[in-house]
């Protein structure tokens, strides 16, 4: 390039330099296009444990969607068979009420997944909103909301959830609401921390200089740049929500019979642990595999997404 700036030239030389630099072919060379998502997926695929988790989750999602059409009605009770070990007709056995365990496990997985997903979406929305407002506005808004989060986190989780569900009542909607209202704390903290970090960056100032409004800056400029840890929290959160639902149902305050809940089945099976351990084994295995799947996917996502931009 001949348009070199020389300390000795006066402005007269500038116009000559313009012609030299205005159409530089090197400006038109840009590397191959590859999205950030493709990059992350490539790294995720290399992680065997994460792929195993994804396989588990995929399998269980299919079970949750297709399974119920293939098994018996979980509320249909046999009049003659009770507490029967696995047979060809009832591969997971029959429980003390005379219901097919396989049918109850499959429907239980479906219900757990449904509750886990909806509760996670809800808690993420709450967490993002509160975290974003606290991080963006700062000052007293931040102080009040984050002290509130600290207090909530100071209460043991199961006691907190127990308190909420006592107020909200019984049944699926109450469980979903309880899980959402108790799980948003970590999301809010993460989003707040991200907002505080990103709002100082030059591209946010550039958006302000351009006249972009606060809401659009928060939604379009900051949120996409703090979303990666939130995705990880969501994956882990589905697993945690499923576990919490089982715990609440186990304690008798969550899903009520005859709805098929894995936690409820474990609670029922407790009494027959000595004589009929298979009643505990299958619902227990279903919970372990579901939660494990989501945790592995979450960990894999953390590793795949945890790289600096570029």
């Amino acid at each position, binding site marked *: *390039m001949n*348009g*070199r*700036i*020389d*300390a*000795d*030239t*006066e*402005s007269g030389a*500038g*116009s000559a*330099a*313009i012609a*030299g*630099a*205005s*159409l*530089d072919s090197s*400006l*038109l060379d*840009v*590397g191959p*296009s590859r*999205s*950030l998502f493709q990059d992350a997926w490539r790294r995720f695929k290399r992680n065997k444990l994460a792929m195993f988790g994804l396989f588990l989750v995929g399998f269980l999602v299919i079970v949750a969607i297709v399974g119920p059409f293939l098994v018996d009605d979980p509320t249909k009770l046999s009049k003659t068979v009770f507490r029967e070990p696995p047979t060809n007709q009832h591969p997971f056995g029959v429980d003390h009420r005379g219901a097919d365990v396989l049918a109850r496990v499959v429907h239980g997985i479906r219900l757990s997944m449904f509750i886990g997903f909806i509760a996670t979406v809800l808690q993420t929305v709450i967490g993002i909103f509160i975290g974003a407002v606290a991080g963006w506005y700062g000052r007293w808004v931040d102080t009040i909301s984050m002290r509130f989060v600290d207090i909530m986190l100071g209460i043991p989780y199961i006691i907190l959830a127990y308190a909420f569900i006592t107020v909200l009542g019984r049944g699926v909607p109450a469980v979903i609401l309880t899980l959402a209202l108790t799980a948003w704390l970590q999301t809010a903290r993460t989003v707040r921390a991200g907002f505080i970090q990103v709002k100082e*960056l*030059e*591209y946010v*100032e*550039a*958006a*302000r*200089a*351009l*006249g*972009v*409004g606060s809401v*659009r800056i928060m939604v*379009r*400029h900051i949120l*996409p*740049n703090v979303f990666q840890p939130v995705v990880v929290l969501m994956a882990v959160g589905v697993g945690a929500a499923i576990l919490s639902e089982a715990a609440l149902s186990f304690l008798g305050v969550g899903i009520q019979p005859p709805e098929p809940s894995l936690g409820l089945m474990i609670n029922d099976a407790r009494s027959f642990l000595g004589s009929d351990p298979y009643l505990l084994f299958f619902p227990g295995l279903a919970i372990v595999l579901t939660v494990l799947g989501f945790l592995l996917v979450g960990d894999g996502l953390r590793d795949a997404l945890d790289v600096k*931009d*570029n």
Partner: protein
Amino acid sequence: MTVTDEAVDAATTTAPVMSAVDVVKEFPVHGGVFGRTIAKVHAVSGVSMSVHRGETLGIVGESGCGKSTFGRVVLRLLTATAGRVELGGEDTATMPNKQLRRRAQMVFQDPYASLNPRMTIGEVLSEPYLVHQGKKQKEVVDEVGELLQTVGLSPEHRSRYPHEFSGGQRQRIGIARALAVDPEVIVLDEPVSALDVSIQAGVVNLLERLQDERGMAYLFIAHDLSVVRHISDRVAVMYLGKNVEIGPKSEIYNRPRHPYTYALLSAVPIPDPKKEKERRRIVLTGEVPSPIDPPSGCRFRTRCWKATDECTTDEPPLRVVAGDDPGHLVACHHPE
């Protein structure tokens, strides 16, 4: 005659596009148990300057002299503690935000930090149209393509992400973004200091060409004296929140009056071995004093070899030295 030449002639006759009058910006320093304000950082202390259509005013000074803060106050990205900024005679303090942003724009220092990594170039460049004209990205494909061509990039680049571009290309995108609203004034905050020297020339030449074509006024903030010399019509020198000298480029570079300007210019190497050997370099002693507690009187006196008692007690006003160009002002009791 180019727009630039007109501007220099017009400087004394027509009204400026942007004028800042006695701008003061202080940042509170919080401390103690209750986070009370215990001190103030005097970042900008009464700076007045103006730019005309098609003119480039270079602002130079060391890190921390308040030049970037001044640029941000001009754009109301920071609110002035005192003083006022006018765009075309209207006070910006009361101007609606959208109007202000349409008339004055900014190009940022770091091309790696000033573009949102999750937005494509098309999204970045169509945002001004969305904000100011309510037009969606699909409706401004032609405008965005044109902008990209204006800054030497290709319209096909609109679907790419910032990380796919080099520093120089990104800075061109930053310039295109500022151009989108067709502003009257652009504040350029060290637009080339983060770039390789080989890339700087291309960007500086692009800025000059755009100014010739569109007649915007530039407020060119930099610490690189040779770049400022190349692009500016007038130059202002800042030291510790004060404008110590301002004037036409040739006056400042050939006849610096303020000891600080003199010292700054003496630090520039000359690309000629013979002349370089003869160059008399003034090395300033000491550090820049803290802007929390700036020196009394002349702020440069603690490092000045000419300082007298007068400099401690009286703050020198900006004035013309006898025999100089009437546009050449210096704030010194003992000008060179």
